[in-house]
């Protein structure tokens, strides 16, 4: 059997980050990516929180093909026929080194793959790995088509579906209830139009999230990120909620319907759809993280469940880069000790635990079950939109005083047994 020191399965951000660190240290590494190129099949919403990973491979980020630094954060709460948008702006989002950037994966992943190759790793596109080879419980290599290649260690960075790792018994099969489904379009608009529509300084970007009516009562929301010459517009719904729906709504229709809403239409007007994609998102939180290292293998990125949807911040890409880096560090140590067994690779989990990856996932442990509460996606956004609608309404009837108007809504929508219960269950997130 032909051999290399390390095989990375999956040329997404997790796999490429691992390969970069390994190649830099002179480890012989080969990345196998089933897409036509890295990034070809990868979907993200569109915002990378760079701050947590800026010190990992610091030389990389200055020249990374990011789209726009996010300067404006908008959250839109939608009722039927009414909505409220809140803007959150802070100099600290962009001052000095911006905390987050919008990104397009086709561009970002391809660029990173090039950097990885420059460091001396082999990145093989169009190469689907069919099996993780095991011997006495140890991962000893991979099979792609008819070819079997051995490796001291395999980094499993195959993304959310975990097809290989569950087939090899390294992880349980992913369950619908721990996943969301995302649909996304990249819609081209001229930069000037983008800057006008979202009130942006030239080059700056906006992130807008939508909650409420857009998901028809299902867990989830919609997102909009401005890129340089396009916007990424998408909708995310809980897989289990979608599966249970009996009204004939197909999940792919949700995005079309969202785009047709009168609040959204002017945002996308005149744009050309350049890209359409759909992808699953791990949302099971830390309870769905599989065993992270074993004899001859490590797991990183979405394959390890490193993804966190905290309602208004969605993170997965920064986790993927950080985990890839820590995987590379652990492999370097294992190589120095000549021990690629579970024990030799155990430092991986330890370093993840002391990094933001597992810390933030641990902090957010209760979020997935908290998010199972449908009122989050129906009642509250609607109530906020309705409250402000009533405060801002003037008609021929004698008007209640402002406080009275607001109080009526608050009493009706926010002060009842259900909401008090929700507040109680939210106290730990």
């Amino acid at each position: 059997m032909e051999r290399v020191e390390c095989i990375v399965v999956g040329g997404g951000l997790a796999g490429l980050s691992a390969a970069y660190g390994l190649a830099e240290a002179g480890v012989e590494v080969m990345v196998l990516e089933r897409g036509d190129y890295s990034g070809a099949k990868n979907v993200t919403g569109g915002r990378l929180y760079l701050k947590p990973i800026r010190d990992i491979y610091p030389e990389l980020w200055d020249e990374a093909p990011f789209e726009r630094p996010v300067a404006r954060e908008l959250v839109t709460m939608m009722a039927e026929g009414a909505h409220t948008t809140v803007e959150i702006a802070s100099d600290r989002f962009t001052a000095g080194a911006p905390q987050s950037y919008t990104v397009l994966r086709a561009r970002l992943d391809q660029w990173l793959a090039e950097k990885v190759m420059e460091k001396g790793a082999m990145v093989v596109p169009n190469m689907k790995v069919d099996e993780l080879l095991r011997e006495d419980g140890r991962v000893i290599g991979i099979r792609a088509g008819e070819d079997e290649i051995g490796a001291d260690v395999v980094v499993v960075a195959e993304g959310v579906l975990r097809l290989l790792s569950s087939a090899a018994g390294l992880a349980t099969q992913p369950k619908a209830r721990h996943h969301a489904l995302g649909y996304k379009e990249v819609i081209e608009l001229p930069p000037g139009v983008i800057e006008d529509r979202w009130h942006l300084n030239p080059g700056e970007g906006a992130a807008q999230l939508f909650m409420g009516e857009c998901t028809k009562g299902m867990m989830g929301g919609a997102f909009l990120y401005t890129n340089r010459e396009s916007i990424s517009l998408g909708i995310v719904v809980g897989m289990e909620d979608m599966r249970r729906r009996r009204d004939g709504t197909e999940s792919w229709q949700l995005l079309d319907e969202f785009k047709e809403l009168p609040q959204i239409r002017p945002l996308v007007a005149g744009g050309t759809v350049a890209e359409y994609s759909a992808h699953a998102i791990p949302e099971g939180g830390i309870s769905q993280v599989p065993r992270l290292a074993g004899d001859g293998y490590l797991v990183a990125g979405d394959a390890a469940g490193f993804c966190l949807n905290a309602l208004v911040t969605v993170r997965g890409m920064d986790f993927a880069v950080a985990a890839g880096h820590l995987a590379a560090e652990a492999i370097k140590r294992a190589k120095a000790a000549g021990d690629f067994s579970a024990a030799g690779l155990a430092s991986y989990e330890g370093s993840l635990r002391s990094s933001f990856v597992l810390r933030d996932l641990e902090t957010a442990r209760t979020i997935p079950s908290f998010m199972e509460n449908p009122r989050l996606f129906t009642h509250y956004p609607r109530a906020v939109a309705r409250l402000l609608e009533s405060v801002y309404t003037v008609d021929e009837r004698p008007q209640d005083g402002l406080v009275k108007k607001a109080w009526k809504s608050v009493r009706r929508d926010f002060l009842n047994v259900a909401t008090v219960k929700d507040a109680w269950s939210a106290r730990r997130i």
Partner: protein
Amino acid sequence: MDIVVCVKTNPDLEMVRVKDRVAQTEGVPYKIGDLEKNALEAAVALREAGAAAKVTALCLAEGNRKAAEDIKTALAMGADEAVVVDDPALADPDEAAVAAALAAAVKKIGACDLLLFGEGSSDNYTGQVGARVAELLGLPQIGYARKVEAADGAVRCERSMDDMIETVEAPLPAAVTVVSEINEPRIPGLMQIMKAKSKPLQVWSLADLGLEAPAPVREIVSNLAKEQDRKHIVFEGTAAEQADAFVDALTREGVLGR
């Protein structure tokens, strides 16, 4: 017998999008052209059948800054060696410059009994390069080959013509341009891809070939298809009435009944 296959890489056409009538190639990865893959496959098949000793893939980078990486696909498909001619002066060459560079490179490679090309490239398909190189090297050329056999110092090809198949023979050395019917190019497996890494690959500049930067002999004014004015005629009425009106309109335009 040694074979040299001229291989062009071009932006992956499936990924090129058109915006405002201009092809957007920024960030689009390159790949080896389709007919060039047929030519490679033909060459490797000849070697596997014992008719050839060595197959060299020769690629002119033409602005593809990753040509030396992309040509490894040819090595994975079975070529024994690869040569890339990469020079800033040849970033966007015309066919004359391409042919001059390829001819010089073939000479520098030395041993070449059979020179294979795709009939035309996947992007521009000018179909000129094979014939031009053959002319510069003083080789007989066979075009539209759908079958290539080599034996006893000669190459025998079936040529795919519109309404017939022509069988012709030329003494070696010779140049042959192939069409897609000739074979089904193999998709290299991982093992082949890995082995390709250690096969010899050289990168030459124009100076290495003893050539000067070419003076362009063609200038592209526009390569856009002419924009069509649509008539915007809507036919109404029953199906039969619409059909009649449609035929009348076509006749008036001179499309029918000439």
